[in-house]
């Protein structure tokens, strides 16, 4: 078997909170293969963002190791693009300047930078807004800009933290479809966090269900539905069954947990 693209080995993250230690992640292990699309669902506070931030190199695990391409993560890197729920666009830069940001830090020459920015702005359908400031964009457009900004550095991995969580249902579904369409062409490895079970099943090869206190992986569910996936698929009995399984897995752990509190 080839080395997994992402390999998380017994990762533990403990935050000191006052005099006590809060176990945000208690020994999480997970492999993600190259070209795989993995979604992570779980109740809020179960450590999804913490896991993603560790892979992004924004936080260090207090135990265990996180490997990307077989090498331990020691900080952010250009092979890992990150997309945040709050868009995190630089509000003082235009769409184009935002998209060029990563290429500037990578010292990509001006001509190529502009050409590539142009390409990715068109890919996400923002060509008419290339010179607009983020404050003039809707939530969906902002997230499309953030996606173009991440793509522009050409990462082989996309780490997405509830990217569509703040969008209205229709925009969310559109962006899901566009994301899958792009993914089926370029096959970047994706780890996508969501709290929306429907979204988790619709996008993924595999759904990782996490639980809280301590943050851990409860179950990993394979999604054997063929790509390309479209709206009709959401109505199919297979999809419904998978959704029920994931939902049950997310919901059930809450049932056990609550009385113990």
């Amino acid at each position, binding site marked *: 078997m080839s080395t997994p693209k992402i390999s998380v080995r017994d990762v533990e993250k403990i935050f000191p909170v006052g005099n006590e230690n809060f176990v945000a992640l208690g020994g999480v292990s997970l492999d993600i293969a190259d070209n795989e699309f993995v979604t992570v669902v779980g109740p809020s506070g179960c450590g999804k963002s913490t896991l993603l931030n560790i892979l992004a190199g*924004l936080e260090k695990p207090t135990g265990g190791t996180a490997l990307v391409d077989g090498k331990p993560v020691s900080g952010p890197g*250009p092979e890992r693009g990150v997309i945040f729920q709050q868009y995190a666009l*630089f*509000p003082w830069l235009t769409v184009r300047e935002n998209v060029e940001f990563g290429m500037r830090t990578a010292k990509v020459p001006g001509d190529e930078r502009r050409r590539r920015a142009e390409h990715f702005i068109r890919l996400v359908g923002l060509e008419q807004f290339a010179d607009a*400031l*983020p*404050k003039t964009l809707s939530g969906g457009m902002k997230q499309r800009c953030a996606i173009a900004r991440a793509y522009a550095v050409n990462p082989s991995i996309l780490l997405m933290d509830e990217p569509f969580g703040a969008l209205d249902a229709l925009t969310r579904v559109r962006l899901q479809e566009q994301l899958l369409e792009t993914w089926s062409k370029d096959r970047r490895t994706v780890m996508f966090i969501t709290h929306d079970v429907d979204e988790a099943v619709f996008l993924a090869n595999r759904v990782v269900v996490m639980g809280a206190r301590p943050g851990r992986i409860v179950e990993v569910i394979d999604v054997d539905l063929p790509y390309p996936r479209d709206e009709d698929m959401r109505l199919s009995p297979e999809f419904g069954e998978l959704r029920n399984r994931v939902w049950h897995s997310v919901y059930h752990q809450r049932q056990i947990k609550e009385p113990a509190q």
Partner: protein
Amino acid sequence: MAVINADATRAATPRTRKSRTFLVLNIVSVVAGVAIWWGLSLAGLQFPSPAEVVAAGWTMIQDGSLVTDVGASLGRVLAGFALGSVAAVLVGFVMGWYTVARGLFEPWIQFFRTIPPLAMLPLVLVLMGIGESPKIFVIFLAAFLACVISTYQGVVSVDRTLINAGRVLGAGDGTIFARVVVPASTPFILVGMRVGLGSAWGTLVAAELLAAQAGLGHRMQSAQLYYDLPTIFVGIITIGVLGLIMDRLLMLAGNKLTAWQENR
């Protein structure tokens, strides 16, 4: 010195009927104020009438004294304000960026903030003599103290996600600082600079009242010896108008620089 909050630096709302009514009220108020002033002076109060003040102002313009005084005062305030703002921005950034610097600077800044800059003037005059430097130094202090905390606040309140976004796009510390922290704290710096300018202007005039051979404050001080009320009025009005103009210019520049801000 006016206390300005962040909202006050935001751009004016689009021209609406409301803002036009407002403007009309403003004009009515100014005209009525001048009329009352005129009425009081006619009623035998010790005031010079507006006409006398205008005449005095015109004479002072013609003999060049007003221009000299304005030049002297503006030169001092701009020098002190520019130095103070630059120092405040540098120190504020260093304080926000390095915990060590913050620990070292903080007690001194907090201490000097509680002292009105003018209270330093006697000491400064003794140490620096009676030339330009003590006055510029006191103005510098006023502008610096008003602006430094604001800059520091701006740096520490930069949205963590923006810094993270920069880091995952490959930016190192230097790039994060120059391309994320600096632009993100501009609104704070500008608010600080506006407060600093008000503070500098107020300190200037008082410093000139105490120790100067030229300048608006000095002019008013010598007019006082001769009971020359029109000249004092010209001084007061000039100070007010110049202060207002500088504040508005800074506000316009600020609005340009921070036009990217959401929900304005």
